[in-house]
């Protein structure tokens, strides 16, 4: 914290800038709705009035940190990057939250996420657009809080555990074909379900083909590791509909043959052991009686042998 100094030419004072930038991020979360569209166009927007005049009535103590020497201040371009980071973060989080249930995070938010990813890469790559101070040093390596990193990693963790990359093309710019196929197939199945909503037995009959196809598609995706949380969730919901709500499970019909075969198998060892017991000859052991010294007389034996 000590290393974060007031921004250069802006006249913003000390760490107040820093803190305000964060407050701004928080503010965005609450206020900005259409974040996805805003982040690309507003890159060149001048500093917001909030940032320029940080001395809000609620933060009087911030004034205490007056002004740090010039060489420790954050350059303007870095502040700009910081702002962008905030905006894109908010956009991404917003998107994630709104597609939480049913899960559509990968389909809906990959653009927001990738632009957020870009700005982070920009900051952390260490290249500075102007001046000799890298933004990586001033923004990310200056304090133990490592806020940018933590924010970034929390989003990345969510992204990784959702396995979204598996549904996206290698450049992360669009959904893979198989994902799109799956979605269309899913819609087909769902519309079929809709059609027969009244009669479950008919539904089980008529939608079986599409549902089976969907299942097969899913299992091939599982095998190829080409599935993400969206697909997994959609499949889960569909399966639950199919099995639980519509009750299209396979009935247990073959109890009699299974019992018959099983009891036949279980009967075999009984016969086997019985026939062995009755017909096999019992193995007898021949006892051997060792020679023992029964009395002192046995000494004679040794004598006999050698005389």
């Amino acid at each position, binding site marked *: 914290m000590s290393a974060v100094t007031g921004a250069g030419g802006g006249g913003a004072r000390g760490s107040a800038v820093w803190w305000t930038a964060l407050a701004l991020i928080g503010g965005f979360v609450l206020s900005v709705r259409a974040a996805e569209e805003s982040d690309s166009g507003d890159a060149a927007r001048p500093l917001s009035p909030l940032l320029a005049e940080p001395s809000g009535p609620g933060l009087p103590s911030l004034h205490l940190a007056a002004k740090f020497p010039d060489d420790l201040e954050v350059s303007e371009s870095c502040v700009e990057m910081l702002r962008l980071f905030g905006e894109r973060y908010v956009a991404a989080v917003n998107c994630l939250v709104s597609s939480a249930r049913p899960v559509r995070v990968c389909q809906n938010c990959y653009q927001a996420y990738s632009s957020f990813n870009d700005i982070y890469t920009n900051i952390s790559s260490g290249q500075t657009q102007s001046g000799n101070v890298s933004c990586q040093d001033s923004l990310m390596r200056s304090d133990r809080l490592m806020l940018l990193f933590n924010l970034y990693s929390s989003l990345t963790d969510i992204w990784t555990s959702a396995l979204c990359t598996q549904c996206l093309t290698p450049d992360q710019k669009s959904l893979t074909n198989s994902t799109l196929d799956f979605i269309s197939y899913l819609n087909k199945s769902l519309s079929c379900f809709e059609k027969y909503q009244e009669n479950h037995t008919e539904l089980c009959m008529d939608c079986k083909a599409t549902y089976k196809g969907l299942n097969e598609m899913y299992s091939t995706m*599982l095998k190829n590791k080409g599935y993400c949380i969206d697909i997994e969730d959609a499949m*889960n919901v569909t399966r639950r509909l199919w099995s639980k709500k519509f009750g299209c499970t396979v009935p247990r019909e073959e109890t009699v043959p*299974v*019992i018959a*075969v099983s009891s036949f198998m*279980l009967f*075999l*060892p009984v016969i086997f052991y019985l026939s062995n017991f009755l017909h096999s000859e019992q193995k007898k052991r021949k006892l051997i009686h060792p020679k023992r010294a029964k009395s002192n007389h046995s*000494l004679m034996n040794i004598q006999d042998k*050698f005389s």
Partner: protein
Amino acid sequence: MANITKKVSWSGRGEERTPLLNGSEEVRYSRQSSGGSVFHIGRLSTVDLDEDITPEEDPVRSKPKEIPHNEKLLSLKYESLDYDNSENQLFLEEERRMSHMSFRCLEISRWVICGLIGFLTGLIACFIDIAVEYLAGVKYDLVKENIEKFTEVGGLSISLILWAVLNSAFVMVGALAVAFFEPVAAGSGIPQIKCYLNGVKVPRVVRLKTLLVKVFGVICSVAGGLAVGKEGPMIHSGAVVAAGVSQGRSTSLKRDFKIFEYFRRDTEKRDFVSAGAAAGVSAAFGAPVGGVLFSLEEGASFWNQMLTWRIFFASMVSTFTLNFFLSIYHKKPGELSSPGLINFGRFDMDNVQYSLYEIPLFIIMGAIGGVLGALFNVLNYWLTIFRIRYMHRPCLQVMEAMLVAAVTATVSFAMIYFSNDCQPLETVTSEDYPLQLFCADGEYNAMATAFFNTPERSVRSLFHNPPGTYNPLTLGLFTLTYFFLACWTYGLTVSAGVFIPSLLIGAAWGRLFGLLLSLMTTGKLVWADPGKYALMGAAAQLGGIVRMTLSLTVILVEATGNVTYGLPIMLVLLTAKIVGDYFIEGLYDVHIKLQSVPFLHWEAPATSHWLTAREVMSSPVTCFNRVEKVGTIVDVLSNTSTNHNGFPVIIQAAASEEPGKLCGLILRSQLIVLLKHKVFVERARSRLSQRKLQLKDFRDAYPRFPPIQSIHVSQDERECMMDLTEFMNPTPYTVPQETSLPRVFKLFRPLGLRHLVVVDDENRVVGLVTRKDLARYHLGKHGLEELHLAHT
């Protein structure tokens, strides 16, 4: 004179024909023995009781008595190992010739051998693991596909038959190999290795052929879906590897690499075998320390500190060899963090906590394990007796194994079929074979995760699957069926271990125990996940069955990689052993007894101080003079009824009637080598150039000394004389006649003796104590009992 022993033929297999017993020529029925199969030795000792019965007049004498096989017999086919070094003149000469440097080299080669043992054992474990994984994968995929196909269209009974047939086919191949090629490879091999380390030479137990059959058999029986594990056989495999590598040659392959010749004797070989057993344990469980302690527990009487350290080295090498090669197989080369064939998986730090109030629960679990283990052993005991008595033909044994395999599949299938326990699976890995059957889509049959998998995987899923994966009914049914299946399976003529099935039974009821606990108590106490109780149950059940203590604790601690559970595991095993021992011995001891092995326990029976060497020993003893006629020696050695192995050498006082004084002990094997090389006094005189016999000549013949029949001695040579002075052990251990049995025992067992000469106060030979003379006394239910000797 006695016709009972005439049927002993000198056929085929070398080791079987020479029982170590010094006796059996004279048949005397003591009065007591005409009673039951076991007679009790009362306080009235047997010394003078039968003076009035002269053997020649005894009518029963000529009729050999036959009884059904039971556990109170000692078999004649087992010999003792010569752990005691024969310090004859040849030995002293060789020692004189050896430089300081060659002793150093010996020490280094011991280390090299231990490294090799570890390496090869690890490789074998790796091979078994990969082969089982592959074969089981093929089988389960096939059956799974079939079941999935027939679930909808009907015809699941065909899947059942397919499963049963596949199982039987695998098991048949394995059982055929064992029953027809090498019967000693049956079972886990731990009892056999225990006997070997105890000093009993079990015929063919450490041969290359045994190893091959064992490895092949294990792969077949595990892939065949029997309720068995591949861990026990690893110990046997390690021991065979050790016995082979340390000799620097293979008698079966007729290859002699001319290395490690110094180690060609029982003393050295047995040290290496203990290292091999340790390496086997270590490879099986990823537990190097546990392996060392296993060897310590089973063969501890002949240990020293340097040997311990070498054995530890072998264990470490073995576990890391396995690890390394498996990491390559799993395409993560160099990742050395999953040692052992069985991987219990790691217990997360959140779940490992246990509290003080859980200790009594663990102890209760230990007691349950002890009772269940004892039940297992009793059932298996009766089953084994039945098998020995009635199922002695190899084809019957193969059929039995196939039946068990088929029934295992049937029972598993029926359980899965009728189970209503459907659970969603969190992640489906390629290692699992989830079956859906009649469950809703996305859910799987919970019974199938336990039954439709190799036993090890089932253990792992019982330990680690999150709470709610199994419902109590599933676990209860699984425990019940698996208990009987495992009990039925152990003792079949297939190579297979009992560790994993025991762990599986225990893990199932342990998990059930944990589930019930959390059902009974509401809220206040937080019972951590049932995996912990599954582990304790597994420990209790295994401890109740095999009754190992220290080594098992360490093995389990190492296999789970978790020292936190050290105390509970120890308590559980302790309780299980105490409770189990109240009913019956451990499974391995039961089987050793049923094999009629002359096994020496740690101590002599407690109430045997009144027995003296005079009553224990065999007498009279066949002795040789220091310079003996060749004809006499050949006659004694060829006598089929007296298959003696050690002969006291005496000095006959000239022209006196007194028995000679003891001056040494010579072994049958030495005499045979001497006869083969024709070391006769006359020949030495006539041809001075004749090469002097060295210790090497004795080693070259080891361990399969030719039978006496293969040595031709001409009529002229029979008249020659043989001087035994150079070759006999000049200082055999002796005891006076009045020595008590425990005292004899204390000398005999820790020194690993094979013959102990009983002398009178003038150093005249009175009798000879051998392993069977000591092993026949044991403490039964009614006090001290004596075992019978029998041909088996």
